[in-house]
């Protein structure tokens, strides 16, 4: 059980998911560190993978950690999904090593939904799992994200854009240009061509595919910029009595917008390509974020996302 506000906010969010959403939640953690589990079932373990532990090595060394045990619950069919706000790399390593990859999947990827005013969220893959990618990997990420958007958001033919530095197919790194060629040949994907950084919000497409390094930088840049903008607006409102009066009117309209854009309301990122469901919640998750992450995990299970991904990815396509 990890995260900046663990264990208190994590347990509270889990309790809320049980009470408000009717979900069944098992807490996995070290009882002595956990405190009051608020009446929830607990699977006890003895080790913790810290936020700064080496992801892959820690999964080998700390076999009785909450991350490894949670992934094993999913592998063994005792849980439908795992949710963690802990060490992202170790969460991915635990899930990969214990649940395994779906047949044909070269590498799992992180899919992060980004709010898209007026339409379903845009899903960006890969948001940080694979810093170095091949064109074939990006094609597979696009296929998996497209399937996820169909199953989870009900979009019948998700449009897919490739993140680049220009709309023309000749723009970008060799990876981008080679990926563009492959995506353009895939009839089962609704590939619409390159998109640019300014197309992240609002996005004209349902899926944006990129390598994990670029995706993570883009995501964090967007997150930082949004925080800055909202903080600046609040600061301006506090300038004098006149702006405060204007703010009292505007905030009623601005706060819901800000709420939609905050990570707490998004429910985290999903690992696609595993033989099980794993949702990675933000490291700074509060109870609301955890409740939403559990909701998303439950919805993925109900939508049969893993089985749909299994059908999407076939080894002969790789």
């Amino acid at each position, binding site marked *: 059980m990890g995260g900046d506000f663990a264990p208190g906010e994590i347990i509270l969010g889990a309790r809320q998911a049980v009470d408000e959403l009717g979900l069944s939640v098992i807490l996995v953690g070290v009882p002595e560190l956990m405190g009051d589990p608020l009446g929830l079932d607990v699977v006890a373990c003895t080790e913790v993978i810290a936020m700064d532990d080496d*992801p*892959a*090595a820690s*999964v*080998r*060394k700390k076999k009785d950690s909450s991350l490894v045990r949670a992934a094993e619950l999913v592998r063994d069919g005792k849980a439908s999904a795992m949710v963690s706000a802990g060490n992202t790399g170790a969460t*991915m*390593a635990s899930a*990969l*090593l214990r649940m395994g990859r779906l047949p*044909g*999947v*070269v590498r799992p990827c992180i899919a992060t939904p980004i709010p898209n005013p007026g339409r379903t969220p845009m899903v960006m893959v890969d948001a940080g799992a*694979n810093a*170095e990618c*091949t064109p074939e990997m990006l094609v597979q990420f696009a296929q998996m994200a497209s399937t996820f958007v169909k199953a989870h958001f009900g979009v019948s033919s998700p449009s897919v854009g490739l993140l680049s530095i220009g709309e023309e197919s000749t723009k970008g790194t060799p990876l981008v240009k080679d990926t563009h060629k492959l995506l353009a040949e895939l009839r089962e994907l609704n590939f619409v061509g390159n998109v640019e950084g300014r197309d992240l919000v609002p996005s004209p497409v349902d899926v944006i595919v990129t390598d994990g390094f670029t995706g993570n930088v883009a995501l964090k840049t967007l997150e930082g910029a949004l925080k800055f903008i909202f903080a600046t607006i609040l600061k301006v409102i506090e300038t004098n009595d006149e702006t405060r009066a204007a703010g009292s009117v505007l905030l009623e309209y601005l706060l819901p917008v800000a709420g939609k854009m905050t990570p707490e309301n998004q429910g985290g990122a999903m690992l696609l390509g595993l033989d099980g469901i794993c949702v990675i919640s933000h490291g700074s998750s509060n109870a609301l974020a955890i409740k939403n992450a559990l909701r998303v995990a439950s919805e993925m299970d109900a939508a049969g996302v893993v089985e749909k991904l299994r059908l999407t990815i076939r*080894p002969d396509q*790789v």
Partner: protein
Amino acid sequence: MPDAGNPTSLDKATILGIVRDQLAEILEKSPEEIPEDISFSDLGADSLALIELVEALEENLATYAAGFHIDDEDLEGLLSVRDAVDYVAAKLQVS
């Protein structure tokens, strides 16, 4: 066909076959695409893929030598398919 549970029935060629098969599965390649002298980095195997390989080898080779284990501190020295084969062979005292 080597005898399961008997490390003496293993030879280097069999170990090479096991390493290549496991790597092929992890990297979604055919075993023929994995020559003995290729480095893991040239194969595109990142640290997570290598941990997958280590866990797969431990599981697979346990049928020949119960409790077969690859020490984490030894991983840094394994840079190629040949390194992995030599390491396993030495560990199991296979010539």
